[in-house]
């Protein structure tokens, strides 16, 4: 199956999380992704875009979030870039540690890693954060049922 590409640039407003998720959902549904895959990819996309808006761009309306999507018959790859000052994911607390269980934040990246097959962090040319997500369609997971 030929590759399908999608590129979105949105402003740093939370309502755009909805827009990006809907666009990617439509694209992966058209490529045959099942309902479960659509749900978990959708949630991971939400977390990535919300982080870009909230922590990367700090809701600055003049800053943009770029989303690049590549879909083929095997997988979807999503790259989300912000215009912030970068981020070190190793500084994020373990949300499963007993002392963090009652924290009201800090679970987004953990969820992304659970919902997707691959999640990696890097930097954009201008120093912003670039997060890459990959999910194989109908992937055989080794740790039991999804997510």
């Amino acid at each position, binding site marked *: 199956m030929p590759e399908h590409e999608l590129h979105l640039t949105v402003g740093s407003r939370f309502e755009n999380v909805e827009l990006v998720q809907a666009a990617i959902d439509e694209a992966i549904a058209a490529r045959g992704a099942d309902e479960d895959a659509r749900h978990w990819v959708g949630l991971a996309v939400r977390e990535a875009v919300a982080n870009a808006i909230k922590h990367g761009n700090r809701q600055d309306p003049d800053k943009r979030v770029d989303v690049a999507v590549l879909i083929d018959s095997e997988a979807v790859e999503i790259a989300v870039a912000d215009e912030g000052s970068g981020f070190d994911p190793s500084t994020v607390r373990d949300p499963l540690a007993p002392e963090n*269980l009652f924290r009201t934040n800090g*679970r987004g990246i953990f969820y992304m890693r659970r919902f997707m097959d691959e999640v990696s962090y890097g930097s954009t040319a201008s120093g912003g954060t670039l997060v890459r997500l990959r999910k194989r369609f109908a992937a055989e997971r080794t740790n039991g049922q999804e*997510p």
Partner: protein
Amino acid sequence: MKIDKRVVGGVSVLELEGKITIGKGDVALREAVQQLLAEGADKILIHLERVTTIDSSGVGELVSAFTTVTNRGGKLKLVNLPPKVNDILQITQLITVFEVYDTEAEALASF
């Protein structure tokens, strides 16, 4: 997200419908719980059957509601978790934090 409120046998029931997600649903949940607390409610049951999506912000709001109500000596419990909401709470081990019931009758009887 839509929220319906009712009181059954002294328990304030919040029925949530739609998405508990960043920007809208999470804020709506926070405001609804704060309003109940301002009205003096101390037994709160959150009905989740018609929740289609919950993200980390929504989960954070549930945790915040739970700790706020508990710290004031009240109780906050959950009922009718859809499978995907259950999964979300399960993988962050929050299912062990909340009291979760399968039916409203069981939940109401537990207060």
